[in-house]
């Protein structure tokens, strides 16, 4: 019965192609988007027609967006993508059935919409999560009187897949930073029986988000992921690998302060704490604000926001090779301990010497 209802429900939904046509997106614009997506996903050009065909014929998948301990930056990132882009329209083309910030419904109506979406699309809907989940006390964060953990678990039960949007949902993020007062955890810490894609970043790049959804719509399967569950197409290389300032790193040319000669000349920001070498993300290639730039291009070191526990990895402006060699007090203690051992060893040695001399 459920299957029949789901089938009816899906049949009634317009295809992505129909929606884009209704929105006035040209064929050229649509194919351009498909080609860009194929390129981003490192797929061969021959796949572009397949992406286009699949997208045109794809029924709008139901998407439930859950927001937990978050700052809404991830949603802002997606919705503020430079004016009406094709990516934004693709987002219109999914059936976003539940999203606190964007949905018109409120209160009980909103929760009713979530339940309806879950029932109508049981086993086939996508759950997008932004924000971490508190496990310390259910009352730390609730929606409609339901704890975040309870809402997550009941919503993902019938989902086809889960996409963790942002570093908080992917790895615990800022709410999970030391001392983690709410016991914040990531989606993958709680959900073990569903496919999960992590799209970390604080916030993540909008294009990465849409490309991941496009791949899911096109091939009906998850993209290839790295060991942290991130799509390899976007998180396969470090910022440092693709950074346009990399040649300066190799030449040993570094900005020492934010306003010195090196900073003005665009030299490497390693000494100013850039975490590019240890950060996997597509910022250096996909860039932000419709391809305008990315933080390093704007003169600021990478904070490493798409990496787990980025908030607790020392100071943002502390160079990567800075290590804690011990305080002066600790080293002085070591010196005193060493001197005491040395004296003891010498005394023992002298006694042995005296004994040998006597024997001789």
């Amino acid at each position, binding site marked *: 019965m459920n299957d029949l209802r789901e089938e009816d429900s899906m049949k009634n939904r317009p295809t992505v192609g129909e929606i884009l046509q209704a929105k006035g997106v040209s064929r050229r614009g649509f194919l351009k988007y498909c080609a860009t997506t194929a390129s981003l996903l490192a797929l061969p050009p021959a796949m572009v027609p397949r992406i286009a065909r699949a997208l045109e014929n794809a029924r709008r998948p139901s998407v439930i967006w859950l927001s937990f301990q978050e700052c809404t930056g991830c949603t802002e990132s997606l919705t503020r993508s430079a004016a009406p882009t094709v990516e934004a329209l693709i987002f219109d083309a999914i059936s976003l059935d539940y999203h606190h910030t964007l949905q018109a419904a409120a209160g009980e109506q909103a929760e009713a919409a979530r339940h309806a979406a879950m029932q109508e699309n049981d086993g086939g809907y996508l759950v997008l999560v932004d924000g971490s989940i508190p496990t310390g006390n259910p009352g730390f964060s609730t929606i409609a009187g339901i704890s975040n953990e309870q809402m997550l678990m009941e919503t993902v039960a019938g989902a086809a897949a889960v996409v963790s949007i942002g570093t908080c949902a992917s790895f615990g993020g800022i709410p999970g930073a030391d001392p983690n007062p709410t016991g914040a955890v990531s989606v993958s810490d709680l959900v073990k029986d569903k496919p999960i894609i992590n799209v970390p970043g604080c916030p993540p790049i909008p294009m990465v988000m849409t490309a991941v959804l496009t791949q899911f719509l096109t091939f009906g399967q998850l993209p290839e992921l790295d060991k942290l569950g991130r799509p390899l197409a976007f998180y396969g290389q470090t910022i440092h690998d693709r950074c346009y300032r990399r040649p300066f790193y190799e030449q040993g040319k570094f900005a020492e302060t934010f306003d010195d000669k090196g900073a003005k000349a665009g030299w490497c920001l390693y000494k100013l704490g850039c975490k590019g070498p240890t950060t996997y993300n597509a910022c250096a290639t996909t860039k932000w604000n419709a391809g305008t730039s990315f933080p390093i291009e704007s003169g600021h070191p990478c904070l490493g926001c798409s990496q787990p526990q980025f908030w607790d990895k020392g100071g943002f402006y502390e*160079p990567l*090779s800075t290590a804690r060699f011990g305080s002066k007090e600790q080293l002085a203690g070591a010196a005193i301990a060493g001197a005491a051992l040395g*004296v003891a060893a010498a*005394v023992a*040695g002298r006694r042995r010497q005296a004994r040998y001399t006597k024997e001789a």
Partner: protein
Amino acid sequence: MDLLEFAKGPALQFAAFVLVAGTIWRIVGILMLNTKPDYSEPRKKAGYLAALKVIYTRAFTAPPFKKATMYPKMMAYVMHIGFFMTIFLFVPHIVFFEGWSGLDWPGLPNNVIYFVGVATVISAIALLVRRLTSPVLKLISNFDDYFSWFVTILPVVTGLLIPTRMLFSYQDLLAIHILSVALLLVWLPFGKLGHTFLVFITRGTTGMVFERRGART
């Protein structure tokens, strides 16, 4: 705490503690030992100048042995100079020292350091092959020699691997590199690597003893 945080924090702190305590233990322990009584009449007065002279002259091979020891001597020089250059002239290392001591100095371009690092590894391998193929060297070598060689060259190799991302991520390779440095620091005071801080003390002592006995230095 991930591996890199562990390497940069507790592992390096432990290594620094052992390095400082172990080094001072060895130096104090040796300096405070009784000197062997020498009942012979002194040929010359053995002062610090004699010590300095031997520290200088032992940097070069004595003429009769020049030809026979040219190859290992050259390799040893390449290895030692290369090792010091990679430690003190690679900018990320300078940043590390600056963060710890506040001192800063100019570094070399990375490609130069990579070249020097490879030369260091090659010279170290050449020295190991010589040790393994020379019957005399093989006979007098023990675990200390081989392990000291291993812990010395390991940080250079792991450092060179970082930009290649071979098998591991940059982050994991950096952690492995720092852990290999920690291993070196922990071993340094106790094995033959103690020559790092004893070399001038031992050579100076030899110089003073030889001077007193009238030996040519």
